[in-house]
């Protein structure tokens, strides 16, 4: 078995953070933070190298683990969207890690090891490893293990502060996640029973439209939707994402929900590219539209900043699902399908940057004023101008105001909708932007009103942390002004396009 030469990078993408987990648990104490900080540049380098490889060769990267070829063995594969998600994850992990240092420092003097810092840094590395395993996984059962790894990393992050509300939120999150993965596993079992393999690439050429496949895909999709928190399975998300510590909220909202979304994309467009999925895809998009409306309305009604941001995640997840009917049946309309594909993935990436920035901004605001009640935010704009500016910038991305990444994503979805004669989804995109504007401006308007007395921050906010938030917010905007051709990378290795259609 000849291995593709840079394929080992795919192994490293998961092994590095996993090595970090082991080291941090063994060394313990203050070294946990150091291990995490050292893993970050290495992980970023690996992700960058994978991205560069895929970009340079215009072909997906493949690695056969243990040299046992599928269907007996497990292989790893990074196509364009894997490479993009790996890089996004690495960048965000670095930013969030640096941001979290101030919150999860092992106090000096004190015992050798403190609970929250050890748990946070180790779990953060665990989440990173799991995310990378999801993005490069090419075997449905391996992806199940990766998803479970992600759950076990993410759930304890929610309840790190040990308050009763966050314990309840973590428990609810765990139960949803477990049911989601067990349904996914059930579907994989049926697919194995029908085709004798769990390898995504092999399945893509074997899958037929029959009862077993339909039941399997339905179960897997519902399970993954529960983990992605698509309306009406979103109940667990707001308390979990709003209750977690700031850095954890950023990871959960920006990245963790994207992993199960990513798997739905894999399942629908890589595992069963040849099946007629348009009617079912319309249902997914309808749920997405409902999520946009419902999430936005609830976000507008929130009185706490973190809950508002969490409901905004519920709404923004809705956009991701608008891509399904627009991408489906790529052979019929390759141009529009490619545009929708890029739009959907770009929405995932720009929302990741913007939402991480928003949660981090909210964390800094809460640190400065001692609470996160929106009604009491008057004067924050003057006290923390950089943070509020960053909040506003990420708001622009979420709304889809040009020239942000969110704008480009939503524009692509909108044009694809019109091109494919599904104009109603275009209306949803436009309406969603207005809803988003309403809740973002509600917060911004409050922060710039003049308070009765001058606001004095109750705790100092480090300039460096503000700069990190601004950097992420700027990144979410800059995605929109990159030359359009650079998004061609997202199309590399799509299994639902006939080879001739690849640009």
């Amino acid at each position, binding site marked *: 078995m000849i291995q593709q030469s840079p394929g080992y990078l795919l192994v490293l993408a998961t092994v590095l953070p996993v090595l970090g987990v082991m080291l941090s648990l063994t060394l313990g104490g203050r070294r946990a933070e150091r291990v995490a900080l050292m893993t970050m540049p290495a992980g970023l380098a690996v992700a960058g190298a994978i991205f560069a490889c895929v970009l340079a060769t215009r072909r997906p990267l493949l690695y056969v683990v243990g040299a046992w070829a599928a269907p007996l063995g497990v292989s790893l594969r990074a196509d364009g969207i894997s490479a993009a998600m790996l890089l996004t994850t690495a960048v965000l992990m670095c930013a969030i890690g640096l941001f979290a240092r101030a919150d999860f420092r092992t106090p000096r003097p004190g015992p050798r090891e403190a609970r929250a810092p050890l748990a946070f840094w180790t779990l953060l590395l665990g989440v990173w490893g799991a995310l990378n395993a999801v993005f490069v996984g090419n075997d449905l*059962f391996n992806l199940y293990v990766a998803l479970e790894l992600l*759950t076990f990393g993410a759930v304890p992050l929610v309840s790190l502060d040990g308050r009763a*509300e966050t314990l309840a939120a973590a428990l609810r999150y765990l139960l949803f996640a477990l049911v989601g993965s067990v349904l996914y596993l059930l579907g994989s079992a049926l697919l194995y029973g029908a085709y004798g393999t769990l390898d995504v690439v092999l399945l893509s050429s074997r899958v037929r439209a029959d009862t077993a496949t339909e039941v399997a895909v339905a179960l897997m999709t519902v399970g993954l939707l529960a983990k992605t928190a698509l309306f009406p399975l979103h109940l667990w998300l707001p308390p979990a994402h709003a209750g977690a510590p700031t850095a954890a909220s950023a990871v959960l909202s920006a990245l963790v929900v994207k992993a199960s979304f990513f798997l739905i994309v894999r399942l629908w467009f890589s595992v069963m590219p040849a099946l007629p999925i348009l009617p079912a895809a319309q249902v997914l998009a309808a749920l997405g539209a409902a999520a946009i409306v419902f999430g936005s309305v609830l976000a507008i009604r929130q*009185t706490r900043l973190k809950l508002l941001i969490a409901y905004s995640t519920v709404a923004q997840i809705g956009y991701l699902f608008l891509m399904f009917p627009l991408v489906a049946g790529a052979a019929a309309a390759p141009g529009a399908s490619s545009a929708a594909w890029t739009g959907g993935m770009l929405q995932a990436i720009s929302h990741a940057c913007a939402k991480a920035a928003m949660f981090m901004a909210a964390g800094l605001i809460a640190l400065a004023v001692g609470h996160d009640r929106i009604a009491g935010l008057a004067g924050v704009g003057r006290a923390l101008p950089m943070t509020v500016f960053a909040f506003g910038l990420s708001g622009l991305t979420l709304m889809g105001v040009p020239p942000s990444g969110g704008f480009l994503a939503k524009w692509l979805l909108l044009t694809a909708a019109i091109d494919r004669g599904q104009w109603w989804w275009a209306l949803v995109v436009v309406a969603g932007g207005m809803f988003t504007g309403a809740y973002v401006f509600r917060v911004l308007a409050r922060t710039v009103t003049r308070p009765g007395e001058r606001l004095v921050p109750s705790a100092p906010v480090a300039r460096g942390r503000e700069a990190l938030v601004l950097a992420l917010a700027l990144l979410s905007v800059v995605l929109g002004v990159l030359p359009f051709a650079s998004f061609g990378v997202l199309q590399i290795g799509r299994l639902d396009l006939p080879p001739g259609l690849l640009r």
Partner: protein
Amino acid sequence: MTSATLYGLMGAGLVGLGLYGLVVYPHALRKILAFNVLGGGVFLLFGVIARRGASSGLGGDPVPQALVITGIVVAFSATALAVALVVRLVEETGMAALPSDDPPAERAPRTEP
């Protein structure tokens, strides 16, 4: 009817029972138990698929059997984490009930503490 089919039907029934218990009972420990019943059914379906794939002198296809072993360990880890969360929650609040999942908008936490 073969015994594999029989156990397959049993697995389908277990999945149904587990799902019902998960949705209906508010007590968190009940939900965990229902999840485990559901998991048992899912694993059993893997076992049926393995049994039907018996060949080369083996009583069943070893690949799904190995997957089930991995799955059982993962399910146990999940149960342990969930149980620890429930015990902590009860120690904090004295309640093990997760409000039932039917009225969505009502429970959205809107009030300030």
